């Protein structure tokens, strides 16, 4: 049980780290939304599963937190992307931007 919990915790930490790395390395704000949201959602859910395997009597609150993350994180990212699109931020084109951090 402890080993399974450790594996879930490690997978969660790894995916959170990869999501943050994608947040740092992606060239565009839309790419950053995509990398940050998907990888961080999977990482957070896996980390919560690991916590639930370590402390099995906490599962109700952990299911509440996990369901809340699973529900609100795509909604928040979609709201940010829609606001950016309506505000006139154009997606990054591979030939037009010369630096990785530059937009417009």
């Amino acid at each position, binding site marked *: 049980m*402890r080993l399974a919990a*450790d*594996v879930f*915790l*490690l997978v*969660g*930490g*790894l995916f*959170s*780290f990869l*999501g*943050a*790395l994608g*947040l*740092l390395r992606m060239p565009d*704000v839309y790419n*950053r*939304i995509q990398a*940050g*949201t998907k990888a*961080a*959602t999977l*990482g*957070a859910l896996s*980390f*919560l599963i*690991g*916590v639930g395997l*370590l*402390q099995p009597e*906490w599962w109700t*609150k*952990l299911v*509440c*937190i996990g369901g*809340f*993350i699973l529900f*609100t*994180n795509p*909604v*928040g*990212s979609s*709201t*940010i992307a*829609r*606001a*950016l699109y*309506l*505000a*006139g*931020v154009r997606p990054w084109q591979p030939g037009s931007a010369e630096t990785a*951090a*530059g*937009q417009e």
Partner: protein
Amino acid sequence: MSLNLLEIMAFALMGAALLLGLIRLLLGPKAPDRIVAADTLSVITTAGIAGVGVVLGNVLYLDTALIYGVLAFVAVVALARAIEGNRT
């Protein structure tokens, strides 16, 4: 509870993820990059608070994590609406 090596590695990865997100939050070229970084940081922090609750052995940290997630979601949606309102 005492941590073994795998759990220390997992918490170190979470800390490194928070550090990378904080770098993007500090040097994001424009405001949308900072908002996206804050969104990702809030999700990672919500899971991290639950991990802190496991380490310290207190179930109240889960309530803290839930309230933190709710407030971060409301803040992100409000900031996105603020960006959207600037388009005129």
